[in-house]
């Protein structure tokens, strides 16, 4: 569906609200991952507020699109986006990682039934999405909905991921769309230093996938490539989305040290101030 200027502006504001929620959750939790969730906020926003066929008032709607999050450690962006979309109260976000919470450190279906899968250990989300797409194929439902798998670039180190890529190519799973968060970082450094992934496009392509690269922060372009992925009929599609880890907060951007730690109170306050001005776009809120 076409994105108007007005809609893009709304999505940018929404993504910004979600980023602020992420910072607030993490500082309250005192542990968790910062860079990945901030980097993926635009993609989650676009999916939940424009692309997905879903109904927050009826989370178990049979016909819904499925969103499988593979790298569960970016749970804060999933929870924050779901809260802003109406799946859960925004105040509940502050319970992240606390005893008795529905918002486990890594997502768990038993506590939060609105999600499609529990995740955390890397490399097994795409397989689950492949299983869902295979079920749709068996039931002749693969023209009726899409299965989206959101995954990290770091988990492309896992052999299990490539087993899933191989199987999806074999079965030409047309309603499967993988979105790789190509933020180039993992816990111990830059992906190309830890374990080089490039040439990533040709790797996926040689496994019989349709491959698209995109700027993961440009709503119009992102929306176009998702539409392209939906239109590709004979293959599964992977969207390699180049994102900036820590996006929205200059201090956190492109620094792998922010992969696995939360901001402290002071850092969070600075980050929230920066986000409140939407990267300088909202002059009136400058201090």
């Amino acid at each position: 569906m076409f994105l108007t200027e007005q809609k893009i502006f709304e999505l940018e504001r929404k993504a910004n609200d979600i980023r602020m929620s992420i910072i607030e959750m993490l500082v309250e939790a005192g542990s968790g991952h910062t860079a990945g969730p901030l980097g993926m906020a635009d993609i989650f926003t676009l999916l939940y507020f424009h692309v997905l066929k879903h109904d927050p008032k009826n989370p178990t709607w049979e016909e819904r699109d499925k969103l499988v999050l593979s790298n569960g450690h970016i749970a804060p962006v999933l929870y924050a986006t779901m809260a802003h979309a109406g799946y859960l109260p925004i105040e509940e976000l502050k319970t992240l990682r606390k005893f008795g919470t529905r918002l486990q450190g890594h997502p768990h279906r038993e506590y939060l039934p609105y999600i499609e899968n529990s995740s955390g250990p890397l490399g097994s989300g795409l397989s689950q999405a492949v299983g869902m797409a295979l079920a749709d194929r068996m039931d002749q439902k693969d023209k009726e909905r899409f299965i989206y798998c959101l995954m990290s670039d770091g988990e492309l180190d896992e052999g299990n991921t490539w087993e899933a890529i191989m199987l999806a190519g074999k079965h030409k799973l047309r309603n499967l769309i993988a979105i790789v968060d190509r933020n180039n970082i993992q816990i111990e450094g830059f992906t190309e230093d830890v374990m080089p992934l490039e040439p990533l496009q040709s790797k996926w392509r040689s496994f019989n996938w349709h491959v698209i690269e995109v700027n993961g922060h440009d709503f119009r372009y992102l929306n176009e490539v998702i539409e392209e992925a939906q239109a590709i009929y004979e293959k599964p599609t992977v969207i390699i989305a180049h994102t900036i880890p820590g996006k929205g907060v200059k201090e956190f951007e492109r620094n792998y040290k922010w992969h696995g730690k939360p901001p402290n109170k002071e850092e969070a306050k600075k980050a929230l101030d920066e986000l409140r001005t939407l990267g300088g776009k909202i002059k009136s809120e400058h201090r």
Partner: protein
Amino acid sequence: MLNPHLKLNPKIFNDDVEQTPIRKGFGQGLLLAGEEDKNVVGLCADLTESTQMHLFAEKFPDRFIQMGVAEQNMVTVASGLSAMGKIPFCSSYAMFSPGRNWEQIRTTIAYNDRKVIIVGSHAGISVGPDGGTHQALEDIALMRVLPNMDVISPCDAIEAKKTTIALAKSGKPAYLRLVREKTPIITTEETPFEIGKNEFFWIPDVGLAQVGIIVTGGLMHRALRAAKELEGEGIKTKVMNIASIKPIDVEAVVALAKECKAIVTVEEHQIAGGMGSAVSEVLAEHFPVPIEFVGVRDLFGQSGTPDELIEHYGMGKDSIKEAARKVLKRKV
């Protein structure tokens, strides 16, 4: 004597007793389960015929997924299929599944509460000539420790068939442990079977038993022969079949311990963490009695014939008899 109420195979002790690999019962059971419920699907990691899934695959090609040699992908794809309402059975050798893909099973099936049945064929030392790499002696331990996971190890092909049909209906994640070798047919179609319920295959002609022998899987025939010979020596035993290692029939195990006050457990598995451990956990908590464990004692297997290996590693008929005599002496 053989328990007359269970309608067991009357030819059990004949030399020409019919022998069938336990995995064959799984193949037949899956075919029947597939006919009954169109949601049953099969996944296999390049071992369709040896795990006997080929019967299902030939009948329902659209509901069978050939995974290639990719056990980690097999169980995680099965998790996704289950999320869509399918009832996936995943088969490979036990050494590879759950041997290789344990974390995937833990997270995407047990933790995720997805009803997937993991079928580990070629479990135990009786895999034989392939040697230690292929002899899964740790799989019961791996699977019974997982919350949410049932663990079933049938004693013959007929019980394997019944188990498979029951698991398709059970609504829980489960591990089905199968043995490769031909194993004597012990039960019949009429023998009662229920997941979580144990039956006594051998009971004393009169009076109480002195030793309770608890057996799982393919060693049942040896245990029954041991019980028969022990009877000749004046030692009265009861032999309990424990296909369902988890959930374990606590009531039946405790009742047996109370009657006999001495237990022998028999399994083709490491003693550490296996069925014997499950029994001893129950008894330590409810009614402690001396226990002797028949199984593999912290060793890897090697090449040989199944019979040679079962004897060498102390799981043969005579080892079971010896364990019974030993535990009898420890009785207080």
